[in-house]
């Protein structure tokens, strides 16, 4: 499978072909998943190690010419999804401050891991790797199409919003929320219409339910070494820290 995404050039303008970028995406995906699992399973009394891992990720990113600020800002996007429920738990007394802070730290470092992965690997290659590692086709295809068309949908939403504003839609519009609901419905209908046309285009080009592998993957000794080192290091350190 080769996935889909919205704008390789914009998202991967920094790709220069460094050794991390050249690694087989399966090695990178397995390493990232291992690290994410390690972050989740790290005993709370050793939560300070999250800072060390985060620093390591920033260093790796810097070596790939990815500005640390970019990594940190993008990873921060994950925080609200964790902080909101964590703070609720804190307020009702089921979490203490340390647990809440650790949870936020785990989410942030895990998000940094994912951000780094997608910064040094084309999204299509990640999906390609996921598929070859056994991720179900349906899930791979759904992810690919959502990723690709989320951005077209966003463009459409912007156009709809601009059109509405040009005709005076704003905070003083009567029944503002009802109008917004109608626009959202229209947007979804357009999305369905587009999905139908895309499927027609895919069928016309011989699509039979599975994306073809257009970029063959090849694991080299370095790929095996990196994947094994990261995975075994994560597993070994967890065993040692338990």
């Amino acid at each position, binding site marked *: 499978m*080769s996935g889909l995404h919205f704008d390789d050039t914009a998202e991967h303008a920094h790709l220069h072909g460094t050794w991390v970028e050249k690694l087989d995406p399966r090695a990178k995906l397995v390493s990232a998943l291992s690290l994410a699992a390690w972050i989740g399973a790290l005993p709370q009394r050793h939560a300070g190690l999250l800072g060390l891992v985060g620093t390591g990720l920033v260093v790796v990113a810097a070596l790939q010419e990815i500005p640390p600020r970019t990594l940190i800002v993008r990873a921060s996007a994950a925080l609200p999804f964790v902080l909101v429920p964590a703070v609720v738990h804190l307020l009702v007394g089921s979490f203490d401050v340390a647990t809440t802070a650790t949870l936020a730290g785990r989410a942030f470092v895990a998000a940094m891991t994912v951000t780094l992965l997608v910064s040094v690997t084309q999204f*299509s290659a990640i999906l390609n790797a996921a598929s070859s590692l056994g991720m179900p086709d349906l899930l791979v295809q759904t992810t690919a199409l959502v990723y690709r068309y989320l951005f*077209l949908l966003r463009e459409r939403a912007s156009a709809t919003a601009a059109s509405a504003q040009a005709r005076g839609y704003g905070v003083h519009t009567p029944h503002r929320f009802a109008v917004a609901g109608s626009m959202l419905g229209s947007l979804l209908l357009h999305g369905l219409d587009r999905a139908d*046309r895309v499927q*027609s285009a895919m069928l016309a080009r011989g699509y039979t339910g599975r994306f073809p592998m*257009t*970029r063959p993957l090849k694991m080299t000794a370095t790929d095996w070494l990196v994947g094994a080192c990261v995975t075994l290091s994560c597993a070994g350190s967890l065993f040692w820290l338990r």
Partner: protein
Amino acid sequence: MASVAAEIVLDHLVHRWRGRDEDALAGVSLTIPAGQRLGLVGPNGAGKSTLIAHLNGALFATPPVRVGGTPIDRANVVAIRRRVGVVQQETDDQLFMPTVAEDVAFGPANAGHPHAEVERRVREALRQVGASDLAHRTHATLSGGERRRVAIATVLSMDVEVLVLDEPTSNLDARGRRSVVDVLRGLAQTLVVATHDLDLVRAVCDRVVILDGGRLVADGPTAAILDDRDQLERHGVA
């Protein structure tokens, strides 16, 4: 690259969309000889898109449309789609893979060709449309004309015998339009071009049919049809 062996035969083609009171196609009979370049013109709602949908098995008819003698039915639809390629009007619908090269590879890879053959077809198709230098770009970074040429390449790489294009020059500036015309003029396949762009038809097609209200109302050599201004105006084409 492609053979040009497929003659297309439509025999009293009728289609009515569900919920409609009138036929979208009301008995269209048409034979398109192999290698011909047919312009399909008509006002909005004339039935052009419905007819296109019948040419590669997006819709089925009774009696079936035939391509090179093979009826377009559910049993043959996969084989038919390898012979008849459709380039949609919206390139955003046609181009759904991450890079140009992967999009052009999608068709031949689905057909099960070995990787080396897929790569050869991708190179050849991109060369045919003058887009070899775009192989590693994403469609979001392409101009309108480039997108359209790449969309054509996505079908050429399947080594189709018939190329069906829906409004290939819509929303293009003069330069983009010219580049598409140049590509189409250089192709050996049977062409069916549904369009409102009469200049495109004059530049590319050697025969024109006019559809109006689901009926074929005129059929003839390009110059004869396009020079009949009264007829064009009567059917909302000009």
